């Protein structure tokens, strides 16, 4: 068998393998993607919350995408405390101004960034939140100050539809 013929045969086999592999990949993808959130779950992305009954110094917890969202109407002391912290003292430096657009309202995903427990309100060394699972302390802006959690508690996308209603998501 000549050199040329061998090459052509190799090409044929390589092409067959390559085309076959593409097909296998294309077949596997639907089997993987089916486990991603489905269309009905994605459609539930936003929740509207009536906050007219929340007094200063109180927190309400609402469910959004199956997770708790803390909505806290902060006192002036808490705001002042949150805004006076220097960025360099923070493990995950973020300004309170960026976290709470309206300083009175802190809207935050109530999930500890360590391993997903729900922190307790008004506990811990920084008058904010304390996670009982592994001892992470958060301040009045929900920023991590002490403990194993790597980042601040997440701020979801939200907006005030009117003075009394917050739309999360």
């Amino acid at each position: 068998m000549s050199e040329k013929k061998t090459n052509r045969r190799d090409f044929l086999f390589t092409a067959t393998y390559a085309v076959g592999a593409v097909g296998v990949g294309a077949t596997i993808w639907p089997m993987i993607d089916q486990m991603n959130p489905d269309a009905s779950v994605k459609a539930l992305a936003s929740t509207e919350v009536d906050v007219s009954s929340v007094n200063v110094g109180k927190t309400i917890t609402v469910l959004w995408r199956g997770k708790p969202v803390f909505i806290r109407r902060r006192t002036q002391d808490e705001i002042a405390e949150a805004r006076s912290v220097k960025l360099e003292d923070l493990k995950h430096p973020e300004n309170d101004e960026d976290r709470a657009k309206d300083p009175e309202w802190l809207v935050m995903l109530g999930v500890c960034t360590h391993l997903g427990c729900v922190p307790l309100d008004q506990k811990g060394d920084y008058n904010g939140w304390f996670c009982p699972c592994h001892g992470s302390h958060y301040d009045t802006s929900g920023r991590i100050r002490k403990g194993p959690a790597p980042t601040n508690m997440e701020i979801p996308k939200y907006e005030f539809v009117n003075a009394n209603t917050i739309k999360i998501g």
Partner: protein
Amino acid sequence: MKKFLKLFSFLFVLLFFSFQTLAAEKVEYLKTDWSFKGLFGKFDRSSLQRGYQVYTEVCSSCHSMKYLSYRNLAEKGGPEFSEAQAKAIAASFEVKDGPNEDGDMFTRPGKLSDKFVMPYENVKAAQAANGGAYPPDMSVLVKARGGGVDYIYSLLQGYEDPPIGMELDDGVYYNKFMYGNKIKMANQLSDGLVNYSDGTEATVEQMSKDVTTFLMWAAEPHLEARHQMGFKAIVYLIILTILVYFSMKKIWSRIKTEV
């Protein structure tokens, strides 16, 4: 090889046609050209939108569509209303929600994620309001009837006076395409019943076609994706089959000499 191909195609054709004849009913249905049939079949968007209008204005007072959500109206492959239009449609319905903090149920305007609002609370209520007959849910109606779209399309236009000698009870009507010819739904369509915003003339035939197209999409919302993927998949398989065929010839040629 040739024999094999012949055999294979023969089997396939036999299988296909035997089931088609088994599936088809003996009644001759009215025919129309459906844009969604065939290898590349797609829905006619404006027909779907008009069909939705007919459904809401005519059918939805009795027939639910419990598996559809308002968001579906804006999804690809469907009527493809704009997001804003779909939101407005959803908001025009009162949706029951709750319980609120006081434990009470309340109504609010619909959202995209809401399911189509049902005309009756439950099947019993629907039966009570319709002389004991339950107006079937229309979400998968096209797939639930032997004749499919042709059957629905014909049924809507199949109302006639009963033949002489046939006695009909109150609330029962004659329809030449209905199984047993007796139907509990009165004729719903009449020329000019709805006002199509795109200026299409609302004849009974046109409305039947539009609403049937809409029902087909409702039953098979991924039909377009299916047709497109099917074409790609089959072209791919044919290419790979050809490659494998020649690879096979090459490999088997190694031993031919020994035979």
